[in-house]
């Protein structure tokens, strides 16, 4: 069979298949969105109605009341702020430290650099439950000045949660960034060395700007992970007021009475930032995962 044959035959064979493909993917996509849409739908219906007729029923009344209630009564803005106080420094510090470690490991033959790589990567894969109690004990013993933590210890402070995120996530970022940096030609830093650039200038001035796509993809991923963290804040923070939003949303659950419609509204509001971040940065995100690669 010659090449020309195939090229000519392709379009004819593919048409119905393509329609089928569209139908299938559209079905999957809608199926994927249904649970989310169900949450949105539940959040705009009164509790009386859904408790009588179930979540799968035609609406009689629609209301944005629950959004108002979640926003105001549950004081969501306050918890958004808590999350930002934790997530923004955690992501920035993680990327800063991890990129330097990756730079040092991939650019210099320092003694023990392979050991470092294993230590960081494996550390990221340990189950968090295995460190809960000792970590809790250490946190209670480390004193902090009062302006950093009202409890005067690392326990129940934002700094404590930020530090554990940094420690945990650095492993993953080191692994990813080291692989990325190895695709950056050696000649680039060598030219800088000839110009008399020190370690810091090679890192900050040469390598880091080249890693921008990878850093962007990682920042998106890390922000989502830290934003969504539930466990660390639950264990390391005791003051309800200091909880980040993902953990605080749990408080919308009453002790005796649970209004799922209110929680649904709260959940939609909590999910919104991560969904927006993804939709806005989607192109850079997927590109960052692929960019700079040749093949495989």
């Amino acid at each position: 069979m010659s090449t020309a044959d195939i090229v000519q035959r392709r379009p004819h064979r593919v048409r119905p298949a393509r329609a089928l493909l569209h139908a299938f993917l559209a079905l999957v996509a809608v199926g994927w969105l249904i649970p989310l849409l169900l949450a949105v739908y539940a959040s705009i219906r009164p509790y009386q109605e859904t408790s009588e007729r179930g979540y799968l029923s035609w609406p009689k009344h629609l209301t944005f009341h629950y959004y108002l209630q979640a926003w105001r009564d549950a004081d969501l803005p306050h918890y958004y702020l808590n999350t930002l106080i934790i997530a923004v420094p955690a992501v920035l510090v993680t990327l800063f430290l991890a990129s330097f470690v990756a730079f040092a490991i991939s650019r210099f033959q320092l003694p023990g650099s392979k050991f470092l790589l294993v230590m960081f990567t494996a550390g990221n894969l340990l189950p968090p439950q295995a460190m809960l109690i000792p970590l809790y004990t250490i946190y209670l013993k480390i004193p902090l000045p009062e302006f950093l933590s009202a409890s005067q210890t690392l326990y129940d402070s934002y700094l404590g949660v930020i530090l554990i995120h940094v420690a945990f996530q650095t492993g993953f970022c080191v692994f990813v960034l080291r692989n990325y940096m190895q695709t950056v030609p050696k000649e680039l830093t060598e030219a800088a060395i000839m110009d008399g650039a020190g370690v810091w200038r090679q890192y900050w001035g040469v390598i880091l700007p080249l890693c921008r796509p990878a850093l962007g993809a990682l920042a998106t991923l890390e922000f989502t992970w830290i934003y969504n963290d539930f466990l660390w804040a639950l264990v390391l923070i005791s003051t309800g007021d200091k909880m980040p939003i993902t953990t605080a949303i749990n408080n919308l659950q009453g002790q005796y009475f649970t209004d799922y419609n209110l929680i649904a509204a709260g959940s939609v509001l909590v999910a919104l930032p991560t969904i927006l971040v993804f939709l806005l940065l989607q192109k850079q995100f997927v590109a960052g995962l692929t960019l700079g690669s040749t093949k495989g």
Partner: protein
Amino acid sequence: MALFSDRATRPDETTDHPGAPVRRRARRRRFTPRDVAVFALLLGIPIVLDVVLIWGPTAASAVLSFSRWDGVSDLVWNHGDNYRQIVQDYPPFWPAVWHNVIWLVFLGLVATPLGLFLAVLLDKGIRGTRFYQSAIYMPVVLSLAIVGFIAKLVYSRDYGALNGVLGLTQHPVDWLGDPSKNLWAVLVLVAWRHIGYVMILYLAGLKAVDPELKEAASIDGANEVQTFFRVTFPTLRPINIIVLVITVIEALRAFDLVFIINKGRNGLELLSVLVSANIVGEASRIGFGSALAVILTVISLGFVVTYLVQVFREEKR
């Protein structure tokens, strides 16, 4: 795919070029005191954090696992009693192990291949790909706490949408309360997220596959399925490894979702939940919980080590 590429530019490769002596001298140049200070500070901080907050506490848990301690009264060493007790007479242990295994097998054999399949379909680049891709990835950005609430909307016995769709209003099924069904109900939601995650990783990997390879195969008369399994799939190896590790880790670390749904009881026991139930629960059996944590860690490390050995072996080639 660059992020996960194993291909290293080995330092010795460059020295064969003309001009190598200059470069070699440049590389071997002694570091200035300022360089040393930069290294010490910026390698020191992450190392200290990793050792003090990650490895130290994990090791401490291993030590505590040989004791009986409630966190308040005196610590009593009891040798391997905790482990003996876990294996012999701690009823939730074996169900939890079993559930973790089911979780792993289900993610590995059902969800991961589905994610790959969707990635292959999306890689064809038909119109609307961005929409399909976003919709399928969407659940991944949600916190598991929120997925837990969605679970209640879908599965609730009295008001849940699923019973409504299935018309089970007369004899409603308690999807989350019935221990013979709830694990599967939860796994469907877990797959809902996992498939999106796997899909985006493979999609990124597929974009990086050289199109000429595929063309060459189809010119040789290979059909699409053959081309995929013989040409495309082998080049995805680095991503396969990543996906495998993510799958294993997700299965072993699974915690938030069952914790939100029912604190991991009644058919939803998992190792991670048993650990936290013992050490932060009212019982506060820290030694015992630590022993469970050590078991979980050893299982995870088994996979982690296998994985790292793989990665390094590949790089050596």
